């Protein structure tokens, strides 16, 4: 992005929406880094005007200390060597001789320690995105630039150690130095003239790359949820229908290692909670034998569902999406055939299609890295690990439910239990569910961390989440309810439930608990129709006996008159 493009991007910000505020903490003049950070964030958050504010020149710790009190949506930290010891910059003449080296190392160690503590304190309240020194060290060391002497190696180790320790914090994300090296060559980053004249040390291209890296951490693209893969010449090398189950390969010996690496990536994704399915035009029995081979890296139990037949792949994708109950926009489709990719893309314009190119070693590394990036997430939750199994059980539940003549009896026999955490504002899963659930969502409202904290801290506020399990297995934490209790009324501001939990009557139980636990006589629903919350609209329409509208109300006695069956045991937790 050029500076001109960045400034024009800023002009596209909407004027009538709640701003997303970011504090940029750096010791140098922020100048274009601030512009590029704001522009890259604006691209990611087109519905909100992005505001980036900065602290005082040279006072990185002070900017950080004051940042949390300003309640921003995020804090971005751009750390450079000169922030750790001014002698590691070009604007200071404190000495580069052998007498200074040990002192510089001590100073850097001490400053990193105190900065680390300040950043962790900030991150206890606000998400922090941090980039560690991206500029080369100046010519301080007697070993010269070609050799990493003890002092230089020690400085790099100290910075890496601090980055490592900070990355363990749930609310701190660290920009990848490896990625930055790829997109912004280290030798092309520093601008001595700009540094000396203005205090801004970066060339514009590097400022853009660094701004983009920080923006990616603050507002990452939502990770894809599922991947649908072809088999022949994709998951393995060869055509299984011709070569037979033993004639396809994915190893070094048969020059098919790229397929093995692809399987290895899919296995890792599956273990991280990504849904993996197969869409293949093949003989199902032959495929089952190939998948059952003990040397398969992606074992068949990690695949659900399998669509193996001779029909169109768009039909297979449709059935897989239905089984997963997610939209095409959350899914990646991988195939070696441009024809199949085009057919699926035409049927599902939102799906992310990737072509697998067997034998193309030049593009394979970028393909695997790109695949990883599409599913990148800060942490893996317990729910991620449960997702595949809970989808299988949900699928089994739905199919059994459809066969029932007496569904109420069937639901009662599920032995379902709901575990409610009534202090769930600080559980990252709560905000995650609110911000990614579309179908059973009261109003589609998304929250940034600052807004979520503000909601939870307001008078009379409550934030609950609920986990569910029954004889088909655990679904993990599947619902969040948040709002305020005032004057005997619940103002329900956010209510979401995972689609995996539909049709079990959990939503009825949630409302019953709201009346019971808050003592409220009325619930006011902050409802808003969205393009995707049809299931929530249907539920409210049935409950209210009319089409829901903003501010719809339901009195306790009306709810009780409905006499809705409550099938589940409830475990209640207040802490």
């Amino acid at each position, binding site marked *: 992005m*050029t*500076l*001109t493009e960045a*400034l*024009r991007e800023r*002009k596209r910000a909407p004027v009538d929406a709640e701003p997303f505020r970011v504090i940029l903490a750096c010791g140098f003049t922020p*100048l*274009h880094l601030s*512009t590029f950070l704001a522009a890259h964030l604006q691209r990611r958050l087109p519905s909100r005007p992005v505001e980036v504010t900065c602290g005082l020149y040279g006072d990185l710790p002070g900017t950080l200390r004051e940042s949390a009190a300003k309640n921003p949506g995020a804090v971005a930290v751009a750390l450079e060597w000169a922030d750790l010891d001014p002698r590691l910059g070009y604007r200071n003449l404190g000495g580069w001789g052998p007498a200074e080296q040990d002192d510089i190392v001590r100073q850097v160690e001490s400053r990193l320690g105190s900065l680390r503590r300040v950043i962790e304190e900030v991150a206890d309240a606000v998400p922090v995105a941090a980039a560690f020194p991206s500029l080369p060290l100046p010519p301080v060391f007697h070993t010269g630039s070609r050799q990493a002497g003890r002092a230089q190696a020690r400085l790099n180790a100290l910075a890496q150690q601090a980055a490592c320790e900070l990355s363990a914090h749930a609310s701190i994300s660290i920009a990848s130095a490896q990625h930055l090296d790829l997109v912004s060559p280290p030798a092309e980053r520093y601008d001595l*003239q*700009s540094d000396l*004249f*203005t205090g*801004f040390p970066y060339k*514009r291209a590097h400022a853009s790359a660094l701004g983009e890296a920080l923006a990616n951490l603050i507002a990452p693209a939502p990770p894809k949820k599922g991947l649908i893969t072809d088999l022949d010449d994709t998951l393995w090398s060869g055509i299984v229908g011709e070569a037979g189950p033993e004639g396809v390969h994915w190893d070094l010996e048969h020059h098919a290692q790229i397929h093995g690496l692809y399987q290895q990536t899919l296995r890792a994704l599956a273990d991280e909670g990504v849904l993996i399915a197969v869409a293949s035009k093949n003989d199902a029995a032959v495929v089952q034998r190939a998948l059952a081979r003990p040397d398969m890296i992606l074992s068949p139990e990690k695949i659900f569902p399998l669509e193996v037949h001779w029909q169109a792949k768009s039909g297979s994708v449709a059935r897989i999406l239905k089984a997963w109950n997610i939209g095409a926009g959350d899914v990646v489709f991988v195939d070696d055939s441009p024809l199949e990719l085009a057919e699926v893309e035409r049927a599902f314009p939102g799906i992310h299609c990737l072509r697998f190119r067997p034998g193309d070693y030049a593009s394979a590394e970028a393909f695997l890295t790109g695949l990883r990036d599409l599913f990148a997430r800060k942490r893996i939750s317990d729910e991620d690990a449960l997702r595949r199994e809970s989808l299988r059980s949900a699928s089994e539940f739905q199919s059994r439910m459809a066969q029932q003549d007496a569904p109420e009896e069937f639901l009662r026999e599920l032995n379902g239990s709901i575990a409610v955490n009534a202090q769930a504002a600080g559980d990252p899963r709560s905000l995650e569910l609110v911000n990614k659930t579309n179908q059973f969502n009261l109003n589609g409202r998304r929250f940034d961390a600052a807004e979520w904290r503000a909601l939870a801290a307001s008078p009379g506020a409550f934030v609950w989440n609920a986990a569910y399990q029954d004889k088909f297995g655990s679904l993990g934490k599947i619902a969040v309810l948040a709002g305020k209790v005032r004057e005997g009324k619940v103002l329900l501001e956010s209510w979401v439930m995972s689609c995996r939990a539909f049709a079990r009557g959990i939503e009825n139980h949630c409302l019953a608990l709201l009346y019971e636990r808050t003592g409220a006589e009325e619930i006011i629903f902050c409802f808003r129709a969205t393009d995707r919350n049809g299931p929530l609209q249907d539920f409210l329409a049935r409950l209210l006996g009319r089409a829901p509208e903003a501010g719809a109300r339901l009195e306790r006695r009306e709810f009780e008159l409905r006499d809705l069956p409550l099938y589940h045991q409830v475990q209640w937790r207040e802490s």
Partner: protein
Amino acid sequence: MNDIRARLTTCFATVFPALEAAEIPAATQKTVAAWDSVAAITLLNVIEEEFNTQIDFEALADLDSFDAIAAYLSDRVAAGNSGA
């Protein structure tokens, strides 16, 4: 020269979005409140991108009006030092 002034007007509009198009040709650092030191550097860098040229920081102090910048760019074009 007309082409330079038209492209320079675009640069000014990018850096000073509150400035009316008609005000741009008469803009000076004294008459445009938003034209502070940060905006001056930003304007210089945007001009560098538009004209595919490098402007020395030392020249910044003299480039304090639309006309001065237009004249500077014309001189550079005449000397064959820019993409204008």
